[in-house]
């Protein structure tokens, strides 16, 4: 492969990165080619010794997206970082993508349950209040006051669950970043060596 083709494939693979990062990376490889040519090697030799520009580019993109997801946390950011890491190897479908989906599913599930429990409280308490003030006929087996207390308890538990879920999300976020970084360094990009 010639230098121009090599650099354009590399550029294509890192197009998701900020412009200045792209330029820096391309400058490194451009310099490498120039030094190699001074050294008496052909462009094709240098290119084949460098390794596949697409997989090198994908690794750069994954690292950069993980860094960005760490610096400014967002659901979109971590999603992109996960997808970029998955793109480094088929195996990552099973050790990155699937576990991540399950994690997200669990966090959302806990949020929905917490929210439902928190919402159920005022309904139950409101219903008991209506019985207590005589608007509705007595239909509960338990005393209305107990139902009110129980309603308050439900809402508090629901809110607690939401708070715990928030805390859990933060921990999972941090650990996911760490895991992606480790994955990129240790498991993926093996073929780029």
């Amino acid at each position, binding site marked *: 492969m010639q230098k121009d083709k090599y650099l354009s494939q590399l550029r294509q693979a890192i197009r998701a990165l900020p412009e200045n990062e792209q330029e820096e990376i391309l400058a490194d490889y451009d*310099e490498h080619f*120039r*030094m190699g040519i001074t050294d008496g090697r052909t462009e094709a030799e240098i290119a084949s010794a*460098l390794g596949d520009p697409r997989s*090198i580019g994908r690794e*750069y993109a994954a690292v950069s997206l993980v*860094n960005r997801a760490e610096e400014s946390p967002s659901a979109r950011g971590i999603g992109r970082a996960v997808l970029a890491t998955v793109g480094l190897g088929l195996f990552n479908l099973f050790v990155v993508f699937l576990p991540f989906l399950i994690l997200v599913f669990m966090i959302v599930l806990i949020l929905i349950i917490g929210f439902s429990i928190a919402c159920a409280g005022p309904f139950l308490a409101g219903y008991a209040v209506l019985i207590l003030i005589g608007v509705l006929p007595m239909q509960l087996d338990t005393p209305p006051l107990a139902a009110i207390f129980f309603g308050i308890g439900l809402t508090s538990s629901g809110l607690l669950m939401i708070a715990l879920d928030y805390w859990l999300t933060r921990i999972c976020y941090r650990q996911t970043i760490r895991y992606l970084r480790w994955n990129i360094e240790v498991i993926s990009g093996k073929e780029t060596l």
Partner: protein
Amino acid sequence: MNAQFKKGVLEMCVLVLLGEKDRYGYELVQDISHRFEISEGSIYPLLRRLRDEGNVVTYLQESAEGPARKYYSLTAKGGIIRDELVAEWQEFIVAVNGLLDGVNHAEG
């Protein structure tokens, strides 16, 4: 050589070479690939990570033969990491060699 072997030691090799003197990227690649085969393009992502982590810094320097080259220099922090990696490596190869010797003796 097994790619997983190399992945682990490449970082240490780079830090050790930069500890000796500042080098530019191409020079680093040559100094390593003369000793064992690497995919040359993998050095640059590694150097970038080392820079992001504050283990190396870069500067541009004019060269006699042409445009400026990007030099890499080991930081104090990088020196500490290098010493840790080298110490772990020494310990590791002594243990592995001990194991290999033990098995060879048992067989022979």
